[in-house]
């Protein structure tokens, strides 16, 4: 039993979902994703018992390419995030009338497949293929099931596609260049070749372009808010919850190990860009009136901090990045789901049209508050651990970085609470707001348990992580 089974389950599940037809699609999709989650858990158990769950076989001899799926702590954590969030994201679609649901859910599973592959691949070429494959389903999900008029949506989604595609091609050049030197795409072989500092800087920059667009880091972020806004709820959750994390993961797995001697000035510039992104996104979030866009910018601010932590090149920064990545994935999915629930009831994302929901829906409000606090990193939630470690790592580089980066928490608290006040509290709304139904409750409950449990007891995660580092 090794990690290929997770991948195969998701791929076959995608096909089965498509075949199952409109009525059964959701059931099949949820079931498959749960099986994938079970398999992930099983693989983690085996891994912790010291059994190797990696998989390796040669794909091509010329060029020398291996289908190599390496499972270590970091990969398994990311796979867990994917397979944990996928069934929940699918469940958020219950009761929502999507056109052609079998196609939509098949695409969601296919995307989960591609993302899992990205997290597992150890061969640079295979990794690149999975990385690009993940782009195609989200393109169609956003294009076909998104909101707003066709023309506006199309423009936003095409922009997103071309941006990300462009970035990743430069990553491909970097891989090709490395391949010329080592004759293999396998990460251990690539890490062994000795490059001059100049070469490393160029390779660093090529990778950076791909990841900066994916995350996104200022000034490569212009696609993000529009894409998040126009995508259907499922697409937004996939994008923000998992796909962004592909970028952070890749920084930790590929970029930093391959370019340890990158030019100090370049690294500093990147750090400054991350910090600018944090402040810039926070400031925009302050002014946003659309819930989805507000969350998009808050997500950009948080991810900026994660990236900054990773680029500090310190042990703490990298660990903090991993922890915060998981926390952010869970929290942002929950927040987008809550916003989606509001949309289902009131048909709007505009804050000014909301308000006075608390009296109608006390369970909803409680969950909203939990995730809001988790988002701003209140002690006792998962995010606190991550953000604290990240800020600590920034302080090792320079106090000014930590202070500026820390502003995200202050800003975050301000705009999130303000949003909460305007959208949820206030005079009781004249329109009734039905409280959570059982499925919605279940999804939010599971997410809330995860956020609080790991906030109090993060040991399982750090244990698994240290297994690899």
């Amino acid at each position, binding site marked *: 039993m090794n990690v290929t089974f997770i991948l195969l389950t998701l791929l076959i599940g995608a096909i089965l979902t498509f075949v199952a037809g409109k009525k059964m699609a959701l059931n099949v999709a949820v079931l498959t994703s749960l099986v994938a989650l079970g398999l992930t858990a099983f693989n983690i158990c085996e891994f912790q018992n010291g059994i190797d769950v990696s998989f390796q076989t040669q794909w091509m001899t010329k060029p020398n390419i291996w289908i190599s799926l390496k499972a270590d702590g970091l990969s398994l954590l990311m796979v867990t995030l994917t397979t944990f969030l996928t069934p929940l994201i699918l469940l958020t679609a219950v009761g929502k009338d999507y056109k052609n649901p079998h196609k939509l859910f098949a695409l969601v599973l296919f995307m989960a497949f591609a993302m899992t592959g990205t997290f597992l691949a150890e061969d640079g070429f295979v990794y690149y293929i999975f990385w690009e494959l993940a782009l195609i389903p989200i393109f169609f999900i956003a*294009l076909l099931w998104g909101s707003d008029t066709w023309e506006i949506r199309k423009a936003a989604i095409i922009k997103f596609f071309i941006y990300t595609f462009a970035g990743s091609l430069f990553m491909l050049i970097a891989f090709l260049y490395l391949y010329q030197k080592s004759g293999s795409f396998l990460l251990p072989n690539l890490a062994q070749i000795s490059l001059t500092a100049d070469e490393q800087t160029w390779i660093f920059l090529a990778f950076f372009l791909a990841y900066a667009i994916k995350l996104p880091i200022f000034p490569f972020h212009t696609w993000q808010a529009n894409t998040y806004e126009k995508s259907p709820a499922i697409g937004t959750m996939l994008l923000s919850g998992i796909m962004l994390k592909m970028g952070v993961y890749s920084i930790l797995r590929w970029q930093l190990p391959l370019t340890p001697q990158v030019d100090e000035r370049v690294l500093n510039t990147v750090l400054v860009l991350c910090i600018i992104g944090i402040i810039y996104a926070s400031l925009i979030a302050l002014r946003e009136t659309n819930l989805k866009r507000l969350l998009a910018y808050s997500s950009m601010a948080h991810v900026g901090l994660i990236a900054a932590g990773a680029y500090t090149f310190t042990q703490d920064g990298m660990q903090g990045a991993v922890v915060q990545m998981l926390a952010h994935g869970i929290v942002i999915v929950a927040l987008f789901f809550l916003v989606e629930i509001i949309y289902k009831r009131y048909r709007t994302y505009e804050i000014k049209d909301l308000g006075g929901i608390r009296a109608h829906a006390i369970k909803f409000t409680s969950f909203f508050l939990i995730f809001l606090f988790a988002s701003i990193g209140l002690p006792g939630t998962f995010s606190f651990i991550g953000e604290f470690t990240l800020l600590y790592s920034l302080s090792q580089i320079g106090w000014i970085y930590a202070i500026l980066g820390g502003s995200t928490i202050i800003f975050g608290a301000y705009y999130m609470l303000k949003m909460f006040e305007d959208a949820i509290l206030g005079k009781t709304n004249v329109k009734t707001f039905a409280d959570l139904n059982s499925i919605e409750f279940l999804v939010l409950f599971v997410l809330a348990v995860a956020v609080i449990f790991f906030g109090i007891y993060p040991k399982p995660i750090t244990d698994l992580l240290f297994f690899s580092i």
Partner: protein
Amino acid sequence: MNTLIALAGLAVLILVLEIINLRKTIVPLTILGLLAALGITFCDVQILSDNYNNMIVETNFSKMFSSLFIVITIFLVAMSQDFYKEQYEKISDYISLKIFLLIGAVCMISFGNLTMFFIGLEILSITLYILAGSNPTKIKSNEAGMKYFLLGSFASGFILFGIALIYGATASFDLNTISNAILNPETPNFLSLGVVLVTIGMLFKIAAFPFHFWAPDVYQGSPTITTASMSTLAKVAAMATLFKIHAIFESYISEAFTVLLICLAIVTMFVGNIMALKQDNIKRMLAYSGISHAGFMMIALFNTANATAELFYYAAAYSFASIAAFAIIIAVCKNYKDEKIKHFKGLGKQNPMMAAVLTMALLSMAGIPIFAGFFGKFFLFDSALQSGHLELVIFGVINSIISVYYYFKVINQMYSQEAISELPETNHSWIYKTVAVLAILLNIAMGLCPSSILNLF
């Protein structure tokens, strides 16, 4: 040589079949014949084994490309049955012309003597002139035939002039003698002039910048199936021939000329892609995209020692994707006067299968992973890096990004959700769907196991 003889026999047989009133059997018999020819070529069956004074040299290179040409022709012939329904009395002419086209291509790829090369080139070109103008009722088709003929003759003239100069310098048409002569320092200088002229002629045939101006008009005006032949069979044949010629003279030509060719390759990519952005006619768009693909294939010229398999892979991937795309275009645009991209609006709803195939074909051309087009680009970039041409890779990547935009324009149209009620209900012939699906499956199969192709060399 066996391939050539078999094909020539087949072409004549088709004409005979028309005479003895067996018009209905022409297409099936041709496909069978082509399959047999494919077997002969691919399995190296030697029925007649003479070397014919080194006129035709069969190498692995020529064998592989000939097989590819035959497969492409099978697809084209299969589509002809339905395509020429309105001119059914002329079908034997059209089919045999397609076989002659194939003969020209095979001749070009396996020449051992420059006369043979020129004969092959002329067979190919003249057939294409006829086919381009083969819709006499359409003014655009007439224009295409005429334009192609005039400009093509110039190119042939250049090539002939070049061959004459090469002959003057080396006193032979034979490739072996020539390759010995270029090592000899006493060979006159004007040999290089001959080489340049031949290269210019071939650049015209592959529609590389600055000899590309004919391509959009001719592609747009010709009947769609001829466009398909031109952009797959003829382009690949010319490209492979250019590669072969370049490989022979590579050690002789100067550094400056190589730099010039590199610049031409880069500009070709840019011109094709940038012009394609604004097109609203899909055939014209594919013509420009074909120009940029020629630019990509030119990357192989700068590493002739190692890029043979890579060039073949790219050419095959591009051809299969093109065949699939053109099959869908023929089926969709049959009921319209022109081939505007807006005719594809709502195809995703009306006929999801066809839309999916066209999407995959375009994704392959754009170079999205898992489709063979991506691996093709990847292998070419790899070969360019091997020979130290990083600039080609960077410009190639930038062009891949540009090309995504116009390929996705078509994909967007197909899945557009605007009102599509005015779409006429059409019964698309199953033959186009079959051809398209088979071609795209070949493309995906190549993408899944690329080494099966690369290891053939």
